[in-house]
């Protein structure tokens, strides 16, 4: 039996490329801040036939976890406070017979972008209109940026979370950094 402790740490899929520091144009404060939200628990919930309402009610009652729209009758539920498989197990129990529950915690990488120029950077990739009137805080969209499928959520006036398939994460991160160059960016 190999030691368990070493295996159970979750190295960030972006560890090799997301180095902390200040990059790009240097004109005062950085225009955007980038960080990798890791480790994160992320679970797909899809309502079964006729269970839309029941599903959304269960999700509305969640504590320590946030549900984000990800398609018709479909949600991503995220949490930073659950251990391996815990959010998945909890939701599977609460939603038994109501919704399909699928763990995606390792399948997607979530990147946070914030700052005065966050919208300008995102507009280089997504055709979604990010004006607060059309894309308010808490709203999510499925979109494509840099040829990669992205789940985009507005978490604040100038802050967003992007989740991307793990395999594309490095490639996408490189694009995101390049698009932030002109505004100057800080990686946390």
């Amino acid at each position, binding site marked *: 039996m190999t030691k368990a402790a070493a295996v159970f740490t*979750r190295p960030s899929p972006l560890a090799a490329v997301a180095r902390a520091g200040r990059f790009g144009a240097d004109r005062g404060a950085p225009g955007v801040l980038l960080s990798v939200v890791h480790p994160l628990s992320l679970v797909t919930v899809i309502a079964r036939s006729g269970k839309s309402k029941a599903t959304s009610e269960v999700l509305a009652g969640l504590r320590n976890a946030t549900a984000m729209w990800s398609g018709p009758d479909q949600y991503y539920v995220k949490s930073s406070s659950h251990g*391996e498989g815990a959010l998945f197990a909890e939701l599977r129990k609460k939603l038994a017979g109501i919704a399909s529950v699928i763990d995606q915690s390792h*399948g997607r990488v979530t990147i946070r972008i914030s700052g005065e120029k966050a919208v300008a950077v995102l507009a*280089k990739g997504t*055709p979604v209109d990010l004006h607060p009137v059309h894309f308010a805080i808490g709203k999510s969209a499925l979109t494509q940026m840099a*040829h990669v499928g992205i789940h985009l959520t507005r978490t604040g006036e100038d802050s967003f979370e992007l989740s991307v398939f*793990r395999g594309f994460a490095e490639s996408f991160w490189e694009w995101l950094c*390049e*698009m932030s160059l002109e505004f100057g960016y800080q990686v946390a």
Partner: protein
Amino acid sequence: MSGFRLGKGGLIDRDRPLNFTFDGTPQQGFAGDTLASALIASGTHLMGRSFKYHRPRGAITAGAAEPNALVELREGGRKEANTRATMIELYDGLVAKSQNRWPSLNFDIGALNSLAASIFVAGFYYKTFMWPKSFWEKIYEPLIRRAAGLGTAAKEADPDRYEKSYAHCELLVIGSGPAGLMAALAGARSGGRVIFADEGAALGGSLLFEQEEIGGQSGLAWARGVIAELAAMPNVTLLPRTTIFGWFDGNVFGAVERVADHVAAPDHSVPRQRYWRIFAGKAVLATGAEERPIVFGGNDVPGVMTASAMRHYANRYAAAAGSSIAVFANNSSAMRTVRDMQAHGVNIAAVIDAREGERIVNVKGGKRVTGIELADHGSIPCDAVAMSGGWSPVVNLMCHRGARPVWDEALAAFLPPNVGEGFVAAGAAAGKMLLSQCLADGAAKGTLKGRVPAVPKCRDEAYQISPLWWVKESVGKAFVDYQNDVTVKDLPLAAHEGYSHIELAKRYTTAGMATDQGKLGNVNAIGILAEATGKSIPEIGTTTFRPFYTPVAFGALAGPFTGQHFQPVRKTPLHGWAEELGAVFVETGLWMRSSWFPKAGEDWLAAASREVLATRSGVGLCDVSTLGKIDVQGKDAGRLLDILYCNTFSTLATGKARYGLMLREDGIVFDDGTTSRLADDHFVMTTTTANAARVMSHMEFVHQALFPELDVTYTSVTEQWAQMAIAGPRARDTLNKIIDGVALDDNNTPYLAAREIRILGGMPARLFRISFSGEHAYELAVPADYGNAVARALMQAGAAFGIVPYGVEALSMMRVEKGHVAGGELNGTTTAADLGLGKMVSTKKDYIGRMMAQREGLVDAGRQCVVGIRPVDKSDRLRAGSHLLKQSDAASMGNDQGYISSVAWSPMLNEWLGLALLANGRARHGEVVRVFDGLRDNYMLAEICDPMHFDRESRRLHD
């Protein structure tokens, strides 16, 4: 050299001289100049040579429509051919070269073409180079390409960055002259998001050079006030240096912003250009009008330019086109040039008013105007000519989606078509020729809601025109289309030879082609063609307007997606582990897959062979994470799978895996893979790497469109799991070292078992006893972040058994040894029976592809089906793609029996093995066929056999 720079006035900064070179000669201009204005100010009118006749040419315009003054800008990887000197903002260190001349701009051998001009008429190429046909490619075309042409492209990579961006607005205003300014102001004050774009370096449009009075101040001062107000509003985005190049469906506009074309080398953080896609609720076309030349003899001699260009150079850039000028016009607007040039102290040598029947028939001078000859045989010395043939509204964008412009007799111009409320024209672009009309029109069209803002008072100048399409008494060449050297003689000739339709005349004469797309010449060409054919101008009509309005660099269209970033790279969760072990990666779609793991001195074949031998004698570990994985849940999950696959899944026991075959609606095999049942209402499907996304959308279609009543959900979990194949006689021993609880055996984990287990002290994992290699094998799936660590742990656990990592090359060798079909056989032409999988096809249920699979052509006994193939001479190497013939047959289409679909070296059998698709193949095992490799032009003999070359009893699966 100097003497043409006016002592005062203009929007140049005389305190900021800028050095540049043109054709290697050092020159100086000022901040605010364009390349063209700086050259004119220094007395350099000769800027290029024409396309066909190599005539000396100078700038005809001061703007985007410029056909003549095309230069190669910058050097090395930054070189850009055919850039318009009239649009290039001067910067310190600018380097430009003239084009299409040899050996020099001043002395160009190609100008001899002019002497033979009588043969270079319209249709010249078609008429002259007809015969012999074989001469086209090798002789005529290279000759023509060298003699006629524009600039040359850079050969080095462009070192600069390009970006793309989307933008959304309630109002897009295109053009920043009086109408555009009022439209933007009106829109901004109504609170909508406004994008205000202009192709020029500065906003202001015609107010940057026309002497106007608005609201009791100069037009320019008024414009600056409006621009300042707009700049301070948070709902307004100003986009100077931005050309809106096209109008597309959904009121989407394409634009290119020249972010850093006005500096020698952009800072790395700044893109050179940015390609915008603008989603506009409403757009206002305020692009103004383009002044037309007049077609008369010598109307291309350097020093001849449109009247508005002449005052533009003088008023904005303080550059006088000459010291003594003649003005030739058929309309009242050219009087502005007379007035303005006089105010600058320039002598007016003559005003020739076509409305009074006066004509210039010839311009004297070669590389510079020296004088003019008039219809009454008089001749007047001068060094520049201003001409005005009337004004054409810049309607291009509004015609990009098929609508045609509408002829207006009084203005002698085409007006924009009515294309609905989403896109409207304002000001001169809409044919409004009075300043007060432009301001009022802009204000009205830009208002999104509420009251139309008040319009300032201004001074108007009446406009009157009497059309003149060409001067019939012209001496020498009179050009209609400068860029293509189309003269007034070419169009009647085209009509005479049967090409009178405007679209045909365009192609026959080339009028309206190339980089300027006839912006200056087309209306004159239409007028001349109308006269030649006796038709009216509306009857002749225009050619088709298409994007792009002006040329757009490929760099801007490609954006950041070049080189390594041409497409995204997809890495598996085991990429790090494979890299540590020295894997060589291969691109499979977007994925990077470990292909082989060479040791020192090994090539791919040696490495992959070693990996096969080690796996088949001990244990091997392969990254199979790229296979598509789809999680299927719901009470109708089994039912959906039964519809998708030609075999049955609803009967699969929980805890078991089954191989499945999916057909297309037309009965051809689509995809294959194993599907496992984890619970009564929970399956996990696997797809091939290549088809993962396609299978997912196929499922969505089948469920949403065909069987919406099914209570089932499906979602891709490809990226959630790191999946590895552990294969070989010691696979189970290896796994047992990391598995929690009861060790694996044939009872708890028989062949085709699918289990959720724990490993390494509590880590969740899925274990499938399935095999692609033909060995006793498992696939282990763990949450992706743990992939590298688990693979390392397995390598450690298997060390005692000689575990090796193996890549897709070894995988492919083993599957060919075992006769398992893959991409080469699932190639979009084969049926289940062709693949030898006919027995899988259910006869008890309906499924996608069932009906069409029964078509007679698909059940024909003679169809090509999968067989094994091995060379008769064991030293021969089979090649995939080789065709199969009967032993005595020659290689011909008629004799073709099939082809080799997959080939691999077999380390176990020490020979090259293959799979092939052979007509009636299953009945031909044992037959020796002739193999023809057309690429290498060789033949060999090979024996047809069962596809399963190795371990035909599949004992190894269970050992």
